[in-house]
């Protein structure tokens, strides 16, 4: 496939691995966080860690949208699915996340709730048009990549006067999550998550541009390299970060220049600003309550806001105690350090959110990494 296969070329990968090995200063260690779950997936799938020198370590970040949604919000979606006349639709990954009492949307569906998987907000709108007798609620989740499509759907629902469509909005923002990781008390501690640089998300950055990362380079003095999702993109970004670290620089660099500009997608940003406003605070799995980190629907679109149409429950719910998703999302623990990993918790029978989505650190490690690391755990 054009613009995919070339960026997975094995010979080029070997060359980049040599360049990385040559750049690695044996007197240092490099601890790099890939923020985004798409990068976590690519790193595991292509075994990139095997191509890195032992003193370069990748730390998984909280950028898996399915993983960071707290149990309370999934409980709320299940509550909505149980209301009279409601058809709840959402993206596939959301269906299997275990919520309170290990109920998932999939189980609610088996119990008779009308829960549907959709590929796009356009499918949800089409359902609403086809079924005027039903209340179609779109359970919206995701970072800035998935937010503009929800904005388009709300605009269309308003323009078409679709009275039986609404959105249960759970969209979250990338920069506050990066700030939370850097501000966490664990960030400076010996056993905690010392980070030397960040790989910036690919598709989120096509929308927001590279500018929102500049405070992390300027204020926190952390190098950032925005990377595409293919394995060579990630390797090149690792090399760019290592060069910055070796040179003592901290700038925002962009490896994904074929799709990301400094300004981002102005049209998508304008749509988001028109439809959504910042929430004062929002709970994230693993990161807790983060101020100004999530979006709610503006008053102008109130008739299409599921949180105003129903009195959606909003009580915090504690995570499953044995599940380490929280620590994994903060970069403090690795999947294999969870006692349930691979025993009580597998993709077929997930206990926590990180085992559900292909972008979750536990699912990625289960699918691609567990045999590779079995004999050679390393931790510089």
């Amino acid at each position, binding site marked *: *496939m*054009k*613009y*995919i296969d*070339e*960026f997975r*070329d094995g*010979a*080029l990968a*070997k*060359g*980049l691995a*040599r*360049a990385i*090995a*040559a750049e690695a200063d044996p007197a240092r260690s490099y601890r790099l966080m890939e923020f*985004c*779950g*798409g990068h976590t*997936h690519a790193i595991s799938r292509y075994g990139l860690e095997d191509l890195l020198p032992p003193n370069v370590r990748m730390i998984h970040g909280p*950028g*898996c*949208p399915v993983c960071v949604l707290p149990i309370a919000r999934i409980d709320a979606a299940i509550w909505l699915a149980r209301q009279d006349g409601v058809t709840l639709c959402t*993206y596939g*990954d959301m269906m299997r996340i275990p919520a309170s009492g290990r109920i998932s949307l999939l189980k609610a569906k088996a119990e008779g709730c009308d829960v549907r998987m959709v*590929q*796009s*907000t*356009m*499918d949800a709108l089409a359902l609403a048009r086809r079924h005027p007798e039903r209340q179609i609620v779109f359970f919206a*989740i*995701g*970072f800035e*990549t*998935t937010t*503009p*499509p929800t904005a*388009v759907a709300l605009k269309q629902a308003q323009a078409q006067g679709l009275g039986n469509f609404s959105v249960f909005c759970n969209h979250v923002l990338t920069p506050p999550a990066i700030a939370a990781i850097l501000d966490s008390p664990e960030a400076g501690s010996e056993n905690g998550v010392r980070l030397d640089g960040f790989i910036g*998300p*690919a*598709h*989120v950055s*096509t*929308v927001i541009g590279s500018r929102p990362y500049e405070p992390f380079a300027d204020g926190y003095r952390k190098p950032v390299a925005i990377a595409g*999702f293919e394995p060579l*993109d990630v390797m*090149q970004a690792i*090399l760019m970060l290592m060069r910055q670290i070796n040179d003592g620089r901290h700038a925002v660099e962009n*490896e994904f*220049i*074929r*799709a*990301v500009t400094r300004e981002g*997608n102005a*049209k*998508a940003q304008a*749509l988001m600003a028109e439809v959504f406003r910042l929430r004062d605070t929002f709970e994230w799995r693993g990161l807790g309550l983060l101020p100004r980190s999530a979006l709610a629907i503006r008053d102008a679109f109130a008739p299409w806001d599921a949180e105003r149409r129903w009195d959606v429950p909003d009580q915090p719910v504690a995570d499953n105690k044995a599940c380490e998703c929280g620590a994994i999302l903060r970069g403090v623990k690795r999947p294999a350090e969870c006692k349930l990993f691979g025993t009580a918790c597998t993709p077929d029978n997930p206990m926590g959110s990180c085992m559900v*989505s*292909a*972008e979750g650190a536990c699912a990625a490690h289960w699918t691609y990494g567990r045999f590779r690391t079995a004999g050679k755990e390393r931790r510089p």
Partner: protein
Amino acid sequence: MCLALPALVTEVLPDDMAKVEIGGVRQTISLALVSDVAPGDYVIVHVGYALTRLDPAEAEKTLALFAELGVTAAGPA
């Protein structure tokens, strides 16, 4: 969830829609988030929407850089 793929635009349709091809698979997507897309352009598609255009010249430059880095690293460094 956040995965998105480069797709070739084959036809621009009314109402901000387009036909695209992703690795031989045809799909109809929305162009509501981008401007001035024409057949022959590559766009990055996520949950049924084009998020941005892909710049072929920049893609070539990136690939050329990868090749160059590999060659340099193989030299007597």
